[in-house]
């Protein structure tokens, strides 16, 4: 334990496990806590960090035969007034950005959350999910450009009926471990698996219809986007 009673993720676990920290970010009431609860199900006793009123859940798993101790951090409502304590971000290895498909404002606020995250953790893998799809499944027939624009894996999920929750968290864990192990292509790997991801970027002037055409052609084989991390257009015409 480091100062303030916070775990130190630079240390390995008692049995040599890899320790990672995963955080969820997003507006109040988008379902961050419910998603973590759904993934962990019952029987997980959270640990309270009294200093900052943050909650964390320990979870044991394995990634590629490597033992992993995951801490999922949850807020006790500090996302209100956009007032996350820096310790929430400290040493995080992956982040899940959540919005609520029934409330547009929560989608519109995603860039603010991402911006804050990047101030503390410029490099960590970040996944994006659209929660509460159970309210109206038609939402899954719609496109949300944010994740694609930011080159993040995107998931339609429901903490209520469980859709894609386990898959998303497992991907987040893999990304966190890969990040910690300094692996360079972890995100590409996840991206490639999610068929909906497009590596090429579009120029700002293109319409969304044009984009759609590109999706089918772009393929997902390349990881060249590393050099192409800004918004320069790279679409072959």
């Amino acid at each position, binding site marked *: 334990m480091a100062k303030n009673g916070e775990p130190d993720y630079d240390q390995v676990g008692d049995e040599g496990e890899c320790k990672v920290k995963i955080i969820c970010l997003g*507006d*109040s*009431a988008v379902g961050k806590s*419910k998603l973590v609860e759904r993934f962990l*199900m*019952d029987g997980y006793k959270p640990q309270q960090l009294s200093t900052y009123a943050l909650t964390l859940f320990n979870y044991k798993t394995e990634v590629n035969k490597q033992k992993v101790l995951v801490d999922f951090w949850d807020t006790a*409502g500090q*996302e*209100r*007034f*956009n007032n996350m304590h820096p310790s929430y971000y400290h040493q995080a290895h992956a982040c899940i950005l959540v919005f609520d498909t*029934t*409330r*547009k*404002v929560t*989608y*519109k*606020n995603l*860039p*603010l959350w991402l911006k804050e995250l990047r101030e503390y953790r410029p490099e960590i893998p970040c996944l994006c999910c659209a929660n*509460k799809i*159970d*309210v109206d499944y038609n*939402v*899954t*027939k*719609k*496109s*949300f*450009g*944010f994740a694609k*624009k930011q080159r993040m894996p995107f998931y*339609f999920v*429901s*903490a*209520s*009926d*469980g*859709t*894609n*929750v*386990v*898959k998303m968290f497992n991907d987040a864990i893999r990304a966190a471990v890969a990040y910690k192990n300094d692996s360079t292509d972890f995100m590409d790997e996840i991206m490639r698996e999610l*068929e*909906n991801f497009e590596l090429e970027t579009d120029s*700002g002037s293109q319409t*969304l219809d044009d984009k*759609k055409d590109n*999706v*089918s052609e772009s393929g997902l084989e390349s990881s060249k986007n590393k050099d192409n991390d800004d918004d320069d257009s790279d679409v072959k015409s």
Partner: protein
Amino acid sequence: MDEIEIQKCGVKFDPPGIVVVYNEKCSNKQRRRTMPLRDFTKNTNVEKATQDLLSHPRHGKYVSLITKAQLVRLVTIVRDKLNGMSLEASLARNDALDKIDPEENLNTVDEETLKRKKAVMDKTFEKHQVKPDDPDFKYDVEVEFDENNVIESGWDSEEGSDMEF
């Protein structure tokens, strides 16, 4: 509980209380039950008063047949009255608290409002929830959604957005 069915619920101001009208199935009789809110003042915490009622040895089984959101609403109306608010004003305020506005930023509302909004959201959450003891329960539910036949959500293309497309 199958033997009773709630038909109406309401409030009583003096002394403060919650009232339910229910049908007792075995006798097919309509009954009315008044449940006092003990030591209830204008400063009482609504959440706690609601919880006390729900865990009350005799009243608990009746109030647990009302949704939590509705029970909280009733208790709030009683408290508003003790704070000198007119019934009309209180109803209007409570209607606003019970409405989910997709444009409303819940990061900046007070604690009470956030709790109320979450209680309303809980209704759908619980309705759609698949629990471990449900025969259809699966821990890992993976569903792929067709990305190719999508239409624009319309959430990206608006003025004043922080994102540039």
